[in-house]
């Protein structure tokens, strides 16, 4: 579905970005990218989504138009404040053709009844729900999530993680989730890629075979967390 070969993106300072990333993602797979701050995991998503075109290496997708293959969701909702929820979800498309699909998605993310509210009238969690709906409307082959819930409170975060699970159950969207929240990655992902260093490289990979939905307090996940924490240990170089 997505093949990333020897992709590097370094900035002039030479200390940020990432280098020599190899990553294959299968259809329907949910891959988490975990890493310490500054290891270039957000930059990786910016490169994949086409926001940052100055990379080396090759990125291949199944779709003909590379850029259309991706849907992106940011850390902040990034809704257009002058559009109501429905118009924000259909943003970038001609409204009549997508209205039905948009209304359906709005219902899926639990915002039914809020179609004509402006972003200023939404809570942080609701705005992020609208952003999920927007990123799904184009039916992207691969959904890129850049720390999507890191700005939300713990309860809203859990609700939205469960929302993502139920969306994956319905749509089987291939997803790349960048996060610094180990529990989130363990709860949601089929595979976790751990990035380290400046510039960042892929340090190791971890397959999580537990069926979803998982229990948040699962003992096996707890052990995996220990292992990841050891991997991320800052004293190791």
């Amino acid at each position, binding site marked *: 579905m997505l093949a990333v070969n020897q992709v590097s993106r370094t900035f002039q300072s030479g200390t940020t970005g990432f280098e020599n990333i190899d990553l294959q993602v299968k259809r329907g797979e949910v891959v988490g990218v975990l890493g310490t701050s500054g290891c270039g995991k957000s930059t990786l998503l910016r490169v994949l989504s*086409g926001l940052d075109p100055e990379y080396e290496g090759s990125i291949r997708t199944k779709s003909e138009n590379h850029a*259309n293959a991706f849907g992106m969701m940011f850390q902040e909702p990034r809704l257009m404040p002058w559009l109501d929820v429905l118009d924000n979800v259909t943003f970038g498309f001609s409204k009549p053709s997508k209205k039905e699909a948009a209304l359906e998605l709005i219902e899926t993310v639990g915002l039914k009844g*809020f179609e004509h509210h402006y972003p200023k009238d939404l809570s942080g969690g609701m705005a992020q729900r609208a952003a999920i709906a927007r990123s799904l409307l184009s039916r992207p082959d691969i959904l890129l999530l850049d720390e999507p819930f890191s700005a939300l409170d713990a309860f809203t975060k859990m*609700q939205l993680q469960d929302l993502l699970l139920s969306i994956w159950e319905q749509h089987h969207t291939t997803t790349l989730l960048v996060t610094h929240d180990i529990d989130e990655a363990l709860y949601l992902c089929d595979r976790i890629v751990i990035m380290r260093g400046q510039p960042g490289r892929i340090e190791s990979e971890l397959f999580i075979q537990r069926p979803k*939905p998982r229990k948040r307090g699962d003992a096996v996940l707890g052990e995996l967390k220990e292992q990841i924490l050891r991997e991320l240990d800052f004293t190791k170089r």
Partner: protein
Amino acid sequence: MSSRTEAAVSSPAVQRTKIKTSPKRKRGGAWLGLILPVLLLVLWETASRAGWVAPYLLPSPTAVVEEMTGMAQDGELWGHISITLYRVSAGFLAGLSAAVVLGAATGYSRLARQLLDPMLQALRAIPSLAWVPLFVLWIGIGEASKITLVAVGVFFPVYLNLTSGIQGVDRKLIEVGRIYQFTSLQQIKKIILPAALPSFIVGLRSGLSLGWMFVVAAELLGASQGLGYLMVYGQNTSAPAIVIGSILLFAVFGKLTDEVLKRIQTRALKWQDNLENA
């Protein structure tokens, strides 16, 4: 499925009721603004009637109104009003068009900004009335020079607010457009213009008020008709009622036109998260 905390948000009813009550409160507030002017009018009238001030300096409000209605019945007043309105609106449109073109260019393109902005900022530093002799020399004493002067006054606030509005557009929103593969034109239409709209409307309102200021200046300096001319006429014939009447008419028309823009502003910007819409 038991571990799921499934996703339903509470109904929007609470917010609806809040939205319904707020306009009522705002309309009630409008009457408060009338208290002071009415009090002042009453004080002024009594002061004139009681003879506390000399009528050749400050005639009573009723005298002013009589004078103006007299002129209105003669038909003389309408000519003055309409020519002034014409100058303001023509100048406003001219200044606005120039400001939109140049402001959009300098706001959006770095090259245009580096090329044009320093010169425009330098021109802005010239006190606008300093243009009057030059305009009169170049385009004569007719309508064109007055309209040009108004246009110059309108141009700068609109231009400044539009460029800074465009430059202030959130990079994060622009990135959303890039995810959607927007062309430059789509970026401008769907993201940059709506995002710059609040600043642009602020520019329109201050541009309009400067337009009114400049039409007075133009008419004071050389005109044979118009509200500004009427003031000079009142001064020369020692008729304070005419001067005060003209001032009041300026106030009325300035307020009315600003009110139109303000209405547009509230309607177009009801999405803004600010005190006005709270």
